[in-house]
């Protein structure tokens, strides 16, 4: 009996060493942690319960039967983050480059299934050279199985991907279908085809970092939600994100003790909107002053900066925030910002996270690049996402709410629960100058007349009261009391239930 126990220990020890000390050292030399070290940082101390420690591959071709390391290049199991259940898989680059075999994939699939059954998030730590070529189609079949689980789990449990090394080829499509992708600066990249293929096919010379590094995906493609300095920081921030998320689509949003008066008055917000309507201001200041303890977990901060998305808490409960940012492109909607916000709105709706929308939008960005790029369909995504969302929706218009963009931004017309406006808001079809040019084209040569007409139009529409008269604005509120008003609005909506007619699914304009 004793011997058997000893053997278990020695087998465990061997398994935990992954690809051996030499490869571990090499991993460290690249500034990367090992699969198990990463799990240690991701989960609460000693909370990790590993499964499939001893799984080995079944391949025999190319001499593969000679080397059958325990675990097969991925560490899987469950544990807790601040006491809440999560499932995790962590690819082990020290074992055959973290390549995906039939059994490697099966291990991932197993925890995906467990997570679905038990209603807990899946967090994937990706660090893999790709398909295990020796296994051929078995490897591809494995990817396919993982993809199918990603799809099945979408909107049921939160799925988070952290790219902590290479992630190339078909492998990218598993993270692509998860809810969040985080990257580590300088040590991770993801692309469908690598620099070598790019060179062969298009003659374009590009490095892996330029093609698919953290900078490319956080700033240019918008594929990644955020990038962090190193593994330690990335995993700590994933823990912070998980604190905001419900465990599954049936669970309530997490609540935690807070130390911030929900009735806090912020007098400085009364001067946030500048006197000059063409002057920008930082919408982030409003978000941070509204949020409990000023804590804002921003997503895609470096992409489509004309809209801000992320999580805050009000009275300790998670709220998703979408806000136009006047500092970038005057806060207008365009292709990228519409897609960015639509994705976020749909995530929040899927997981019953209330939505706060802060509006200062002059309209859609004009131009051929926008029209040729399909801004019609992309803009419609955000419109659609807001309209189909049944979570509590509270909107605050701070300044401009012009044209179609006004309707899109969680207006009353899209079943917004509370639409508040600051006294500085202007709810109109367009800005006064443009409107007068259309309405009084015949008087165009006469500057005095046009000025008078513009002033008339401003008096009539450059305020929230016309909309408030119609009931499109529920209440005009003082900026300094915004936190209090919004917190109370959400408090009143905690039991909100809204049913939608049966359908297989909608046909959102993709």
């Amino acid at each position, binding site marked *: 009996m004793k011997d058997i126990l000893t053997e278990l220990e020695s087998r465990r020890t061997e398994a935990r060493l992954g690809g051996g000390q030499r490869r571990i050292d090499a991993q*460290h030399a690249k*500034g990367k*942690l090992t699969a198990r*070290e990463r799990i*240690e*940082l991701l989960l*609460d*101390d000693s*909370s990790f319960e590993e499964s499939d420690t001893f799984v080995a591959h079944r391949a025999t071709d190319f001499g593969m039967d000679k080397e059958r390391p325990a675990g097969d290049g991925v560490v899987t199991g469950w544990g*807790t983050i*601040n*006491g*809440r*259940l999560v499932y995790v898989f962590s690819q082990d680059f020290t074992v055959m480059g973290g390549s995906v075999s039939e059994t490697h994939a099966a291990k991932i699939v197993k925890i995906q299934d467990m997570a679905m059954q038990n209603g807990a998030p899946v967090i994937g730590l990706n660090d893999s050279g790709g398909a295990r070529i020796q296994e051929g189609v078995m490897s591809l079949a494995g990817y396919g199985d993982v993809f199918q689980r990603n799809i099945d789990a979408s909107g049921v449990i939160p799925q988070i991907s952290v790219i902590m090394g290479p992630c190339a080829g078909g492998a990218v499509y598993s993270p692509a279908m998860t809810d969040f992708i985080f990257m580590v*600066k*300088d040590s991770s990249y993801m692309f469908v085809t690598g620099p070598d293929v790019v060179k062969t096919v298009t003659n374009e010379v590009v490095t892996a970092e330029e093609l698919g590094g953290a900078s490319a995906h956080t700033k240019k493609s918008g594929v990644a939600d955020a990038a*962090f*300095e*190193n*593994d*330690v*920081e990335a995993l*700590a*921030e994933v823990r*912070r994100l998980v*604190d905001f998320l*419900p*465990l599954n689509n049936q*669970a*309530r949003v*997490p*609540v*935690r*003790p*807070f*130390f*911030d008066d929900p009735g806090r008055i912020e*007098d*400085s*917000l*009364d*001067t*946030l909107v500048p*006197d*000059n309507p063409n*002057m920008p*201001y*930082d919408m982030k*200041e409003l978000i941070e002053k509204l949020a*409990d*303890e*000023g*804590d804002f977990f921003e997503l895609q901060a470096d992409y489509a900066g004309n809209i801000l998305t992320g999580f805050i808490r009000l009275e300790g409960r998670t709220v998703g925030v979408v806000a136009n940012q006047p*500092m*970038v*492109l005057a806060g207008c909607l365009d292709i990228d910002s519409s897609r960015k916000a639509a994705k976020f709105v749909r995530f929040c709706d899927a997981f019953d996270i209330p939505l706060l929308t802060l509006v200062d939008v002059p309209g859609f960005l004009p131009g051929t690049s926008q029209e040729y790029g399909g801004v019609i369909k992309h803009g419609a995504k955000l419109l659609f996402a807001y309209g189909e969302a049944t979570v509590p929706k509270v909107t605050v218009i701070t300044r401009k709410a012009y044209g179609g963009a006004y309707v899109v931004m969680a207006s009353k017309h899209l079943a917004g629960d509370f639409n508040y406006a600051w006294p500085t808001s202007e709810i109109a079809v367009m800005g006064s100058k443009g409107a007068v040019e259309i309405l009084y084209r015949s008087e165009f040569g006469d500057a005095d007349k046009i000025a008078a007409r513009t002033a008339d139009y401003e008096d009539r529409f450059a305020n929230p009261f016309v909309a408030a008269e119609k009931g499109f604005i529920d209440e005009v509120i003082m900026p300094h009391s915004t936190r209090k008003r919004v917190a109370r609005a959400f408090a009143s909506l905690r039991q909100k239930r809204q049913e939608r007619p049966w359908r297989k699914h909608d046909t959102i304009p993709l």
Partner: protein
Amino acid sequence: MFKKILIANRGEIACRVIKTARKMGIATVAVYSDADRNALHVQMADEAVHIGPPPANQSYIVIDKIMEAIEATGAEAVHPGYGFLSENPKFAEALEAAGVAFIGPPKGAIEAMGDKITSKKIAQDAGVSTVPGHMGLIEDADEALRISEDIGFPVMLKASAGGGGKGMRIAWNADEVREGFQASKNEAASSFGDDRMFIEKFVTQPRHIEIQVLCDGQGNGVYLGERECSIQRRNQKVVEEAPSPFLDEETRRAMGEQSLALAHAVGYASAGTVEFIVDGDRNFYFLEMNTRLQVEHPVTELITGVDLVEHMIRVAYGETLSLAQGDVKLNGWAIESRLYAEDPYRGFLPSIGRLTRYRPPEETPDYLPGVVPQAPVVRNDTGVYEGGEISMYYDPMIAKLCTWGPSRAEAIEGMRQALDGFEVEGIGHNLPFLSAVMDHPKFVSGDMTTAFIAEEYPDGFEGVTLDETELRRIAAACAAMHRVAEIRRTRVSGRMDNHERKVGKGWVVTLGGARFEARIEADRDGADVTIDGEILRCESAWTPGDTLARVAVSGEVIVLKVGKITQGFRVRTRGADLRVHVRTPRQAELAALMPEKLPPDTSKMLLCPMPGLIVRVDVAEGDEVQEGQALAVVEAMKMENILRAEKKGRVSKVNAAPGDSLAVDDVILEFE
């Protein structure tokens, strides 16, 4: 007494005057430009009159506009504050003609003291010690050289109408006199429209010490001790104190009596200041007389218990001075730190923008100018508020923070804590620099000259490095705070019953290059944090999210400005800006494996100094640029800012194009 007075000024001094007027039951009228529509002084005053566009020369210093405001509101008197019209004899004249009282000295006194050469002559005649020098106007460089040789080097070349360091040069030899004379003359001509020059001896180891006087024009006058203002940067005062740590009773009396003699000689009435330069042997020389209320008057008020503004108003009303010299007692020590909207890390460049956060330290309740302090006092004279705008049109000073204590050491300690507790965000400001001065050994010992900043910070200010004892204290406080924050995180809903996360006792704290292993034993009131065998008892009311932490560490209070970073805090205290990581031993072990990423070398780049829109890029790739050449124009807040080359070089890459919207530190150009 007057029923209503108008304050022909803005900012903190307007607010200061309104406070005393209100105490005296006098109604107040503020004036404001377009830029000050929502300013604090406008909110505080009983009435406010709009006087024009933002630039001062179209509003605050236009005499006609002030006169119209007086007429419109029926104000019986005007307090001019400092700057603007305060020392403009024409303004005093206009008021006199309109039968409105000027809360300041008679026109004649302003005129007499307004010119450096005339004032020096009058001072000499009144028996005031003056710097050896040539009183007359100087024609050319040859004459300047001859006079300099008579006086003996080093000499100071000064513009008669000069101020703020413009048109002023020190010459150590004949060549420097020749060069400096013409340069100063040109500067004076362009800055003041007056190129008259004079020369005087340059005093070594100089300290700037000034005497506050108060006269009623009826032959009564007192001097209210001195203020030392040696901590200056380019002749801009930064820290002042009263009394001076350098003067003895005898020198003080001599300076005071000479100052009064001068005041009487010009028929002075109201509050005024006689500035002296004092050398290392306590020889003092008259510099000039300022015929107005000084910026730094609060330190005098704190040590004398005299409300200078109240006396100015009473004297202007015609009352006899109620103070005799025997009533003036100097009590304790007061220090003033001027909070400027200037970024010390960027060569003290003025910084403008929105005050997203402005929380001064708590002022001592019940303290008002005119009260003799019994216990430590914090006084903050300010003209701004959170959410307000620091505009480019006016003085970058946003507050004057004063502390009083029974001794100099206590006043300094009070100032350190008050500065640490002063929260200002949204603009660059000199708080860290002020903190650094408060801990500088030379300042603490009182051994300073007007060259203090230039000598101690020759390459500018690069932040403060704290010693290990201080770092250890901060580490203990942060460990205790982090533990509290982590425990709160474990209280989130949805956790697995009986499998909650246990927050451990062992932590590793890294900050400022130091690493401490801490063990925390917490109880109801605080935590014992053991570092290297030493128990540091930490007690604080801090809760997660608070941006200010007052932590008693083994009985000594430290005040930290706290921001959240991954696995720790950004902590600002005592002029240092630290990233403090608090990790479990295992987290720390793994974090130590992470590569250290050095910030990119930006010395060969042109960075965007503020968030803004690129209006123009004036150079192309491959262009050779000269130092000072305009490279690009960034529009921020409707202002076009020209960015210039700091040194000669060749442009290797242009990263921005007109219309691009850039953030601070975005790279506009790269150089070879």
